[in-house]
C-alpha cells in the first residue's frame, strides 16, 4: 500500500505540476518587479509620447519620486507634472490605493480614484512605481514563444496574475517573462470579466542603478490598437526622500525645501 502511494505521488506531481519548476511563478514575478523598479528611494523622469494611427498627438513629461512603503511591499510615489504647460506643477501623490491630486492654481488637494485619468491613456498606476508581486498571485500558465517589442522571438513564461486586493486597477493580468533573463516582455491587462483593456510591451533594456531595466513601455489600447503610448524612463537617481513628502499636507509645499 505504502509503496503504491509512493509510486503514485510523483506521477500525480508529474501530471499536475509539471510547469512548477524553480523559480516559482511568484518568484519570477518578483524578479521582473526588481528589474522594473530600483531598490530603495529613487527618482526618474518619464516622457509620455502618444500616437494615434501612427501620428504623434501628445507629449507629457513627469518626474516620479518613489520610496518603498514600510509594510505593504509597495512604493509610495509623488509625481510632478512638468509638461505640457497647462499641467506644469501639478502633483499626484500615491500611497498604496490612496491617491491625491494637487493643482497649484487652486492650491487644493483632492482624493481621486485609481481609475481617474490624468495622463491620457497611461493610468496613474502605469507611471507610479508598483510591485505587481505585492498585489497579485501569480500562476503558471505555459511556456510560450512570443515576439517581443522588436519582433524577436522570445521564450517566455506566461503567468496569469490574479489580484489579491479588491482595489487594484486590473483584476487579472497575463504576464510574459523571459525564462532565461527574467526580463518582463509583455503584459495584457483585463477587466474582471476578462475583457482586454490594454497591452504593454517592455523594451529598451539598459543598465541603471545596478540592474538592467526596461526603460520603455509601449502601451496599446485594446479598443483602438492604433492608440499607442510610449513611456520612456530616464535620469534614474538614487536619493533619500523624506517620509514627509508623502503626506497630503505636504503637497502645497513641494519645492520649498529645494525639492
Amino acid at each position, binding site marked *: *500500500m505504502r509503496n*503504491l502511494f509512493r509510486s*503514485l505521488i510523483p506521477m500525480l506531481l508529474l*501530471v*499536475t505540476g509539471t*510547469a512548477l519548476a524553480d523559480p516559482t511563478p511568484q518568484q519570477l514575478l518578483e524578479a521582473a518587479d526588481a528589474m522594473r523598479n530600483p531598490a530603495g528611494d529613487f527618482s526618474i523622469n518619464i516622457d509620455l509620447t502618444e*500616437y*494615434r494611427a501612427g501620428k504623434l*498627438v*501628445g*507629449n507629457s*513629461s513627469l518626474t516620479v519620486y518613489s520610496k518603498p512603503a514600510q509594510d505593504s511591499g509597495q512604493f509610495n510615489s509623488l509625481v510632478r507634472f512638468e*509638461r*505640457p*504647460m*497647462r499641467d506644469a506643477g501639478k502633483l499626484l501623490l500615491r*500611497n*498604496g490605493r*490612496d491617491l491625491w491630486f494637487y493643482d*497649484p492654481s*487652486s492650491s*487644493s488637494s483632492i*482624493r481621486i*480614484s*485609481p*481609475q*481617474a485619468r*490624468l495622463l*491620457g491613456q497611461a493610468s496613474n498606476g502605469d507611471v507610479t512605481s508598483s510591485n505587481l508581486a505585492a498585489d497579485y498571485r501569480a500562476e503558471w500558465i*505555459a511556456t*510560450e*514563444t*512570443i*515576439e517581443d*517589442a522588436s*519582433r524577436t522571438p522570445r*521564450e517566455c513564461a506566461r503567468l496569469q496574475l490574479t489580484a489579491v486586493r479588491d*482595489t487594484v*486597477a486590473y483584476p487579472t493580468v497575463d504576464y510574459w517573462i523571459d525564462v532565461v533573463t527574467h526580463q518582463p516582455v*509583455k503584459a495584457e491587462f483585463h477587466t474582471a470579466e476578462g475583457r482586454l483593456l490594454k497591452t504593454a*510591451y517592455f*523594451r*529598451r533594456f*539598459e543598465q541603471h542603478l545596478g540592474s538592467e531595466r526596461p526603460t*520603455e513601455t509601449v502601451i*496599446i489600447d485594446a479598443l*483602438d490598437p492604433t492608440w499607442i503610448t*510610449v513611456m*520612456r524612463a530616464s535620469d534614474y537617481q538614487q536619493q533619500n526622500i*523624506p*517620509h*514627509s513628502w508623502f*503626506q497630503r*499636507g*505636504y503637497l502645497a*509645499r513641494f*519645492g*520649498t*525645501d*529645494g525639492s
Partner: protein
Amino acid sequence: MAAEFARLGQCLVLVAMMLAAASAEAIPSGTAAVQQAPLLPPEAPADGDIAEPEALSLPLGLQAQLLWQQFEQRSGGEERRFDYLRSVLDWRREWMLSATTRLAVSNRYEHIAELDAGSEGPPFDRNNNMLRELWISWTTGGAARPIYLDVGRINQRGGTASGYNPADFFKPGSVVSATSLDPGALRSNRLGTAMVRGLLITEHGSLAIAIAPKLSSSPSIDGVRDSSGFSLDLDRTNAREAIWLRLAPQTGERISIDLLGFARSGEKPQFGANLSALLGNSLVGNVEWSGARRPGLAGPGEPELPTAWRNRVAANLTWTFASGVEVTLERSYAGDALSREHWRAWRAAADSHHGIELVTLFERRSWLQEPLVRDGWFARGSWRDAWGRRGLDVSSFVLVNPYDSSALWQLSMTNAISERWSVSGLLGRYLGGHDTEFGGARTGSYLSLNITRHL
C-alpha cells in the same frame, strides 16, 4: 484487501491520467506558433541620447486673456443683451528666495468694457485689480518634520465637497469678479485673507493654525459692497479677527479626515470636518461638515430664528468611467438657510413690499457664499482629453434648488491648441419660473468666448 488496493490504485492512475489530459488541454504547448507583436513606434536612440523635450520656461507665470461675454438680462418682462470685452492679465508665480524662503504672488487685473451700450447712459467701463495672494514662507525643522511659517495674504481654502463647502471658513466676501460660476473656479479666483499661518508636518499627519488680524474698520463683513479699481478689499477679508485650526492625522489608504475649528470676532465658534474615502476602483466619496450655534433665516417680515446649534453638510460621490469621464453628484444641507415653508412664503411675498428684502437676502447669502435654502443638489461632469483629443477638456455643472425646481446650469469647453495658446467657450443658463431662486435671477443666460496666451 489486496484486490481493493489494486482497484484503488487503478482509480488513482485513472484520475492521474484524466488530470494529465486536462492539464495538456489547459497548458498550450511550448512549441505552439509564435505570437506575433504589432508594429510599434521606434525606440529612443541609444542610452543618454533621449531628446530632451523642448524647454518651456515660464519666466513670468502670466496668462493674458481676451474674453467676449454676452449676458441676457430680464427686466420687466423684457430681455436685453449686453456685450462686454474683458481683457485679463492673470499672474501666479512663486520664487525660492533661498533654500528655506519662498515668496508667492497671485494677482488678476481686468479691464471690462461694454460694447454697443445703446442709448441708456455711458457704457460700462471699469478696471478691476484683485491681489488674491501675496505671502512669504519660511521653513525650519528639517525634512522629516518640517515647520512652515507663512505671512501675508493667503487663500486658505478648505473642504472636500465640490458644489457647497460648509467648512471653507474664509470664503465670505472673497469673490470679487467671476467669469465662471463653477464653484471650483470661484474658490481658485477669490481673494485670500491676510494672516499668519503655521504648519507642522510629521509622519503622523499635519497640524495647521492661522490667525487673521482685523485690518479694516469698515463693517462690510455683513453687508454688500461693490469693489472696483485697485482696492485691496481688506474690508471683505479682514474686517474681523479670526483664528483657524486644522488637524489632519495620517490615516489608512482608504479614508482621510481633517478636524477643523474656526472662530471669528462677533460669531460663535464653528467646528468642522472633512472626510474622504476611496469606495472602489472608480468611486470616491466625500463628506464635509460644519456646525455652530447660529441663528436661522425665517420668512418675510419675521425675526430670525433663535440661535441654536445648526449644521451645514455636503456629501458627494464621484464616479470615474473607463472613458475618463468623471461625474460628481452632491447633496447639501444648510441648517441656517430657509426651510421649504419659509421659501414658499418668500415666493408668495416677492411682489409685495418684501421684494426689496428678498433681493437683500439673495445678495447677502451670495456674499457669504451660503445657499439660500436648506436643501440643495449639485452635479458635475467633466471629461479631460474628451473624445481622445489631447488638450480638449469639457465640463458641466448644475446647481438645483429642489424646493422650486429651479437650477443654474453651465457648460464649458477648453481646447489647448498649442503649448502656449488655448481657446475656451462657456455657456450658462438660469432655469425656472420667475418666482424661483434661479429663474428669478436678473441674468437669464451668459455666453463667453475666451482666448488665452501663456507667457
